[in-house]
């Protein structure tokens, strides 16, 4: 992804502005942390173009994020900025920044641990470290959880249930 540091001048300010927009489901993460903001560009006429990508195609947060980005731009004095939906390449959990992973863990959600699961993988779930006690003795309760991006796990050491941010 385009790192905010690499962007110049006015674009840098937009990255900073968008880094304040939280994900509605996981408010400790910003939409920049999640890799949802794909580009910030200024065209020849000086108009800003902001590309955002959905995480899962049916994620209900996508609409809320769009509204929040629009509100942040309006507040920042960029009401004429153009929001663009970017589908390709599709979002992947590998775009989470290392800061995002640390924030997830501190929030009690295990960050994605492995590269994307193989298509033929049926029974075995990825080995996940419990975000509370650090034990690897966890087991998957369900591949599906409270939001499309999370799976439901349980720790065999501290016995606590926890969410795991899935690989996609």
């Amino acid at each position: 992804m385009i790192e905010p540091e690499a962007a110049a001048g006015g674009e840098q300010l937009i990255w900073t502005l968008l880094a304040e927009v939280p994900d509605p489901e996981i408010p400790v993460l910003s939409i920049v942390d999640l890799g949802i903001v794909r580009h910030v560009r200024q065209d020849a006429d000086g108009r800003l173009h902001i590309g955002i990508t959905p995480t899962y195609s049916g994620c209900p947060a996508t609409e809320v994020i769009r509204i929040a980005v629009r509100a942040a731009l309006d507040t920042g004095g960029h009401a004429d900025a153009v929001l663009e939906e970017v589908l390709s390449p599709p979002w992947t959990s590998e775009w989470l920044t290392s800061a995002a992973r640390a924030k997830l863990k501190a929030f009690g959600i295990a960050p994605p641990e492995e590269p994307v699961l193989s298509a033929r993988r049926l029974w075995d779930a990825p080995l996940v470290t419990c975000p509370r006690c650090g034990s690897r003795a966890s087991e998957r309760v369900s591949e599906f959880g409270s939001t499309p991006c999370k799976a439901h796990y349980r720790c065999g050491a501290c016995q606590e249930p926890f969410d795991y941010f899935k690989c996609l």
Partner: protein
Amino acid sequence: MSARTHAPSELDPAQQEAHFRYVLRLGDTSLVLGQRLGEWVGHAPALEEDLGLANLALDLIGQARLLLTYAGELEGRGRDEDALAFLRDAPEFANLTLVEQPNGDFGQTIVRQWLLDAWQLEIYEGLLVSADTRLGAIAAKALKETRYHHRFSSGWLMRLGDGTQESHDRVQGALDSLWRFTAELFAADDVDERMEAAAIAPALMELAPRWSARIDEDLRAATLKRPAAQPYPWHGRRGVHTEHLGHMLTEMQHLQRTYPGVRW
């Protein structure tokens, strides 16, 4: 929004119509199955499976939104995703007949899901190299989700098929009754042929054996028997539906039909 690859005006009307119908069929298939899965919310055998089915439903409805929005643009008559989803009657829906079949028991829902997941895996993989880059981008996104849908449905197919005598018999019965709808999955018509010729769609004839091999592999693991091939009287993609779709739409479209143009 992504740039359109083909300006509709550059194409001849028959080609434009076929392009619209091709995308509409994909979108309607995802929408109808998503709505069916939504009917399970609060009724699944266990909380985890309730969440699982709801997650699949969300993905499918999300895919339908991308596809129907695009279909509306290709059609060029100003219909958006909502107009297409909520303001058409059953004969205008172009989904595969398989997906409108009622949920039945959990086993029937799983068999229907698994047959369709295996089909979508082939279609979306084939669309990755489509000459229509917007459709290719939607397929690439949907494919990542379809892979875990298939992991979910084939996993349950094996647990039920290779489970107790009761679960085996029920899921075999579901397979026997739903199998007649599978002939439609790979029956190419003029729309498919036009899209294949334009390199927009993969050739169904080439996908069929791959689908079949995946189905056989999963059935073996699930200790289930593949039913005999059956004739092909089903034409959901052409708007000829079983009675079930109309009943489903009355519920799905109730709010928009009762309060036209209503907004949250």
